[in-house]
């Protein structure tokens, strides 16, 4: 391998963000290419096939399944109403009839004479997709969705919970090291995306939820507190569907970890601006990171610079992503070629890092370093 390259999280003051907004099934795109949209605008919509409700008519009427077709009041393809009689036995002299009522409104889709089962499909479920960010429609995916683009500040976190939200940036921490406690969250936080420092207590998060903050961005958070919020253990990092109105974005990792200075400074410089955030995370093939997008108005002609993917090399700024120096920032001083034996006994490729915090030079496995991506 010519270069060791561990991509880091993106923290970019100005870039062009492209977001694909797609329907789960084919449907209608309701905007045009070049159209300006706001985050809340619907860009595409469709109807999902309705839920299906099976009902065993043979069991209900106490007859053989093969007799069912003759006892139907409605044919497959007919509309049916809830509680409507869809099949009945002739009874004795028209009396003592057994009746089967439809459990729901919809269409009688199929009836089986082998099993006596009828399938009723409910009305289609309308689904729409919003633009999510203020911007312009730059691409139409026929029948499926659009691409919305905007010039924005773009920041990725490492882990998050909760889905897409939108709110005004409000900086709560004076610096990257401050722990945010319950008392620091006030009514003024309502509708805001709160920028915190190194740590947020569980009680502080609850308070943020209570006052109606739309999001919290913080350096570190206790892993055990995640369970207290969502009610279950997150065993595999696939999130975004949690039932919380306040999305949480962790920028560095679990535990108390100062937010990276450039992340904090960038967020601070955007205070008062509107941001679109999403806590959705997926750490496997097709990686999804939680994100904060702050559209920059009046910069429509900005031309995007491509990030250059240099390998890890002398002078590269890195973040240590595992104990014992977890969370510390530093600079690569040297990249020894030979494998080195770690304290654990493993042989690994290492890099010599000068840590900013204590000016110490340490040898660390390259696998435990993350490049800081800047443009």
């Amino acid at each position, binding site marked *: 391998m010519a270069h060791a390259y561990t991509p880091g999280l993106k923290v970019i003051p100005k870039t062009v963000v492209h977001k694909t907004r797609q329907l789960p099934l084919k449907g209608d795109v309701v905007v045009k290419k070049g159209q300006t949209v706001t985050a809340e605008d619907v860009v595409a919509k469709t109807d999902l096939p309705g839920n*299906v409700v099976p009902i065993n008519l043979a069991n209900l009427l106490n007859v053989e399944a093969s007799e069912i077709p003759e006892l139907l009041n409605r044919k497959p393809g007919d509309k049916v109403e809830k509680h409507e009689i869809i099949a009945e036995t002739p009874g004795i002299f028209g009396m003592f009839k057994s009746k089967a009522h439809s459990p729901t409104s919809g269409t009688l889709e199929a009836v089986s004479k*082998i*099993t006596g089962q009828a399938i009723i499909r409910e009305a289609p479920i309308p689904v729409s997709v919003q633009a999510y960010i203020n911007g312009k429609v730059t691409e139409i995916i026929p029948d499926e969705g659009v691409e919305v683009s905007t010039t924005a500040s773009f920041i990725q976190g490492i882990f998050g919970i909760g889905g897409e939200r939108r709110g005004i940036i409000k900086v709560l921490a004076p610096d990257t090291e401050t722990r945010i406690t319950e008392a620091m969250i006030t009514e003024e936080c309502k509708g805001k995306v709160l920028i915190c420092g190194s740590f947020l207590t569980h009680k502080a998060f609850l308070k943020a939820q209570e006052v109606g903050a739309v999001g919290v961005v913080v350096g570190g958070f*206790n*892993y055990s507190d995640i369970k207290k919020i969502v009610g279950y253990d997150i*065993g595999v990092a696939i999130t975004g569907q949690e039932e919380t109105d306040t999305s949480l974005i962790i920028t560095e990792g679990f535990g108390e970890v100062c937010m990276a200075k450039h992340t904090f400074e960038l967020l601070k410089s955007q205070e008062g601006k509107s941001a679109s955030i999403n806590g959705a995370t997926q*750490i496997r093939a097709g990686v999804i990171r939680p994100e904060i997008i702050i559209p920059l108005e009046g910069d429509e002609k900005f031309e995007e610079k491509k990030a250059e993917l240099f390998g890890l090399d002398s002078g590269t700024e890195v973040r240590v992503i595992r104990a014992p120096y977890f969370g510390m920032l530093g600079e690569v001083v040297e990249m020894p070629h030979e494998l080195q034996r770690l304290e654990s006994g493993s042989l690994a490729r290492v890099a010599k890092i000068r840590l900013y915090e204590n000016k110490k030079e340490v040898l660390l496995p390259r*696998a435990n370093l993350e490049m800081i991506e800047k443009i």
Partner: protein
Amino acid sequence: MKPEAIKSILATDCGSTTTKAILIEKQGDEYRLVVRGEAPTTVEAPFEDVTKGVLNAVKEVEELRGRQILDGDQIMSPQKDDKGVDIYISTSSAGGGLQMVVSGIVKAMSAESAERAALGAGAIVMDVIASNDGRLPHEKIQRIRHLRPDMILLSGGTDSGNIKGVVELSELLRAANPKPRLGINYKLPVIYAGNKTAKKEIEKNLGEVTDLSVVPNLRPILERENLGPARDKIHDLFMEHVMAQAPGYKKLMAMCDAPIMPTPGAVGEIMQVIAKKEDITVLGVDIGGATTDVFSVFRDLETREPVFNRTVSANLGMSYSISNVLASATLPSILRWVPFEIDEVDLRNRIGNKMIRPTTIPQSLDELKIEQAIAREALRLSFVQHKEFAVGLKGVQKERTISDAFDQSGSGETLVNMMDLDIIVGSGGVLSHAPRRHQSARMMIDSFLPEGITQIAVDSIFMMPQLGVLADVHEKAATEVFNKDCLLRLGTCVAPVGSVKPKKEYMHISFTLPDGRKVDRSYKLGEMELFEAPYEPIEAEITPGRGVDVGSGPGQTVKTTIYGGLVGIIIDARGRRPFVLPENPAERVKKLQEWSKAIKEFEDK
């Protein structure tokens, strides 16, 4: 080409993150692994062509071997002079592997047989839908709609039985109209392997909405499973549909001389070949970042025929799913293996951080010990799942004689008999790349708790998948390389079963090591000791204490041949059934440290 004329074999395994290539060459009369190369897998953007990663891995093999195999982006075949290879084969688990939903009428019978067929073929089973699974019909439909499998295996009913149950399942499937995971322009493959008399109705219900294949019933009578045809069909459809949808696989399929097999399916193949050839029982485990696979070949309780089983614990792994190990095992279970005191919140945060940064490695010794403690629990839990699944057929009526009246064994009893087990083979990062082999042996012993006399080995570089496909093409080459290059023999674990009072003798062993040293030792309950010895036969005499069993029954002496290895002969007198760790934390830490020292887990830094 005749098998004996084959001079060289190139085999790749395209994993989710790494593509591994091995080159096997005939040296004299035997086949040996000569070099191994690897490169990142290129299924995802920006490359979206699996063959790029394959070619990169092969290039590394070329460089290391110093001879040409590639001509541009083609593998030169057959071998001419020093160029090219005679056979090229591959396995794949990239893009999430093979994901299936299986369905049957009775959860413990046809649905379980269907699950066994799917797992044996190398699939991850996303859900088992059964008529009696406790869910209401509309809940089953919702579930099927929500899942997007690669294919569905539908079974149910014996060949002369009622067709209603399985037709009802097909109606639910039809109503759910499931969509395939990859690609929107083809129909979802469904395999029907149930009651043959229902075939017409199944075709009527599913023929149009799905791509239906009908194969012979996988449970034609209650007493017999016939999983072969369903497994073969799964492999065919995996090639035709799933692989064909993944980027670059059409090219890869054209390059290969044999069908591409799902990686775990191939591992199963080689384990069965070895078990059969050497007439041994085998327990294999592959612990990865996201999942842990357990394979076993044990003997049927009645017929004594070898029975293969595979389970996949989809969310027990050492990186992506490490937090799920914590959730499933609970913190106290992990802590019981950590040989020092640690703050609970700190431990949880460390585990969470490994989940979100899965490629990091332990730098400090303490971090390594924590990771190996978690691995013990991941392995233990995967094995618990395996034991529950590797059972005899359920629902089978047995004729009982008066002599069976007091025997409570019924159908569905686990086939896993640790006392009968000959060898444990481990693979996967945490076992294959442990800084000392002693640690790998300890992890496997602690989590599987072998009983009696059991050999321990690791697959040093996880070659089993490639050898599995090779076994289909060239069994001699596959078994030779497996024994000589793939398996690293670590040694033998001697672990008596049962308990004695604290100061009584638990076992006594005597043997002569190959270097002439004589060993004649007695052990108390709770002791461990290691004798360094090479992989050579050693005649040993083991006498367990009163009521304690080491293979021949309580208190009975065993005279047998044991083998050393890279670690040696491990005496594990800590007890089995029960195996107990001290409850008191300080006492537990002391014991763990004592055992580590005895087995030399963390020495020779």
